[in-house]
């Protein structure tokens, strides 16, 4: 027993020592660790070669393990792709970019740990966190340290509560309201059912805003059914209730992995309403083994479609596929745009690599409202001081196993709203007639 205790103490001591040692030697450790991914290695090499402008350090936070890993990994890949491009094109104002991406396991507490790890590493701005609850938690500490934070995909309202936080994606209420308006304006249905994940921040956030806006619209929510993280393999009851209530449209404000199951089970019970989703639906056609015919006529709001003709999007999609062997989803696209937004804001604010994170934050806060990005998730993407992006959602409809942008006018983001609505109405009209 003696030995065991001695060992325990020794182990604790060893851990503690490593932890302290970590504070001094962290940067080099992290560089070595990051060496496993080609882009980080490229960034490091480049920074060695080009010392004139120095190196700017960007930290990323997101889930790389656990049930939400798929989103975190997409963001990591999207951000690293952008960093690689930026470095090849000469960096940000001559400075090379280095990105270090830390795992938060989709947990608020672990996200704060990841944030602190990045702080030790010397991160000068944060691209994260990916999911909502961790993002709110990181926001709380990042605000105290006054570090600039841009979340690619944290949709909850509180994600951008503080003035140092901005986001690339749409917020939950905005998506809920836009969805309800779209359904109402285009007369897609009079009886609507909603199925949402009552244990998830994103899903309930959208649903609540949707239900609120629905009261002003020309349709009625006839069934609102929930599921939880613990019981998300069987949707037969929720679908049966929607069917019994005579819903012509089912609103699905959650991610595509669960949605693929909903579509399959609905097909199994011969229930064919219109399905309507939010940005989490993007990526459903990339699910390996998924029968795309099931998703026919699925409509969702999305900032991004990989099949768009736009050359910038095409380039992004091709590069992403070459690098990671899969089609990017909107998480990757948000991160890609986010990285370019950081670049633009840094250039606008004349950020240099020897500035402190707090000074950089002040400069970038002021610059974020000045910049305009022509990104893959929107053209003429700008930000308000509140942290919200101003961009128009695209309405995407899946037809013949492919994404198709319904609302062409909105996609370009240039046309006036009225014209856009007319265009969309005519498209919907023809489709309805075709049916």
């Amino acid at each position, binding site marked *: 027993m003696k030995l065991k205790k001695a060992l325990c103490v020794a182990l604790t001591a060893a851990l503690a020592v490593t932890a302290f040692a970590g504070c001094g030697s962290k940067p080099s450790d992290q560089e070595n660790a990051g060496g496993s991914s080609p882009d980080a290695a490229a960034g490091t090499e480049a920074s060695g070669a080009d010392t004139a402008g120095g190196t700017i350090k960007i930290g990323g936070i997101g889930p790389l393990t656990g049930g939400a890993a798929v989103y975190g990994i997409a963001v990591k890949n999207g951000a690293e792709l952008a960093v690689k491009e930026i470095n090849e094109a000469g960096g940000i104002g001559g400075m090379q970019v280095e990105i270090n991406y830390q795992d938060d396991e989709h947990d608020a507490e672990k996200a704060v740990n990841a944030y602190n790890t990045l702080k030790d590493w010397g991160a000068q701005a944060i691209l994260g966190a990916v999911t909502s609850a961790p993002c709110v938690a990181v926001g709380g500490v990042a605000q105290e340290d006054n570090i600039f934070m841009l979340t690619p995909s944290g949709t909850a309202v509180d994600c951008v509560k503080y003035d140092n936080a901005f986001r690339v994606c749409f917020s939950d209420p905005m998506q809920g309201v836009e969805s309800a308006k779209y359904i109402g304006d285009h007369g897609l249905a009079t009886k609507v059912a909603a199925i949402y994940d009552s244990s998830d921040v994103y899903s309930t956030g959208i649903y609540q805003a949707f239900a609120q806006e629905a009261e002003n619209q020309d349709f009625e929510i006839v069934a609102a059914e929930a599921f939880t993280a613990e*019981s998300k393999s*069987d949707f037969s009851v929720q679908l049966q209730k929607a069917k019994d209530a005579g819903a012509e449209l089912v609103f699905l404000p959650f991610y595509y992995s669960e949605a693929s199951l909903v579509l399959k089970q609905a097909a199994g019970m011969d229930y064919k309403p219109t399905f309507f989703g939010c940005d989490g639906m993007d990526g459903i056609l990339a699910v*390996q083994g998924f*029968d795309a015919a099931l998703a026919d006529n699925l409509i969702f709001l999305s900032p991004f479609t990989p099949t768009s003709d736009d050359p910038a999007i095409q380039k992004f999609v091709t590069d992403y596929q070459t690098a990671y062997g899969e089609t990017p989803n909107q998480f990757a696209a948000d991160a890609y745009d986010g990285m370019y937004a950081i670049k633009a804001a840094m250039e606008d604010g004349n950020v240099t690599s020897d500035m402190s994170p707090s000074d950089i934050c002040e400069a970038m806060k002021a610059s974020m409202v000045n910049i305009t990005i022509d990104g893959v998730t929107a053209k003429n993407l700008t930000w308000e001081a509140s942290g919200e992006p101003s961009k128009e959602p695209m309405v995407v409809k899946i037809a013949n196993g492919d994404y198709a942008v319904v609302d062409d006018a909105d996609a370009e983001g240039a046309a006036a709203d009225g014209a856009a609505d007319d265009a969309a109405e005519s498209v919907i009209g023809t489709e309805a007639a075709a049916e």
Partner: protein
Amino acid sequence: MKNPSGRTYAAEGNEKYTGWGNSMSFISYFINGISLGSVYAIIALGYTMVYGIAKMLNFAHGDVIMIGAYVVMASVSGAGLPPFAALLVSVVFCTVLGIVIESVAYRPLLNAASSLAVLITAIGVSYLLQNIALLIFGANTISFASIVPVPALALAGGALTVTGEAIVTIACCIVIMIGLTLFIRKSKAGQAMLAVSEDKGAAQLMGINVNGTIALTFAIGSALAAVAGVLLCSAYPTLTPYTGAMPGIKAFVAAVFGGIGSIPGALIGGILLGVIEIFGKAYISSQMADAIVFGVLIVILLVKPAGILGKNIQEKV
């Protein structure tokens, strides 16, 4: 407002439907409950068998199921094997995996001072399997193509459908249950299992190879996990490295429900759990589904503390 005629049609259809409505949806919920329950039951069979013989809760069982499903997926879409051959590959793979896990991680602890030690190791194995799958197969959801060849059964003029997966799962459950019961009652190895579960020490004195028997139990349990994995993913076709975790816990609950260690109990417990879950969602609240399931579980255990079919062993002084 573009297509009024279409909408009236839908409304009419709906009225016709609700005329039948309540009793029809009740039956439909019931069938769905049994389908869900049969998946829990087939997982619970593996749990309960290992518990009965080795007296340990194998928390990694759900993850062996996930590995089994990935192996089938990889051998169908990667190596181009026909579904049945893929299932066979998966059964063999999981059996070997089960034996390896048992001999490396569990056997050294079977005689440890506390039975909790092996439970914690099982949790470690569960994390390990999840992370190995994450590294090999990635985090992306895979929509598992059903390999069940049975078509859906339409009843009452199409108002009710029983999916082919549900029929096959229930059939498999019953076959496996009968097979296991016969194996344990009739074969020599099965008798040895019974003896080990009664009293390890005495069994050893009678010349039974205790370690071999326990390894055999794990082998059978893991082979069942491969079958369960295929059926789980055929019925609910999303596969991620974390697919096995939650059904694993639910199946554990089902096994306790039925009386842990009892093979018919696992079947009854699983089906009851599925039916309660679906009815709870349908008639009480879909938000509270978990709370309802677990609430019923507590009530049943308070009334029958050893589960539905469990033996209540009297303590002797």
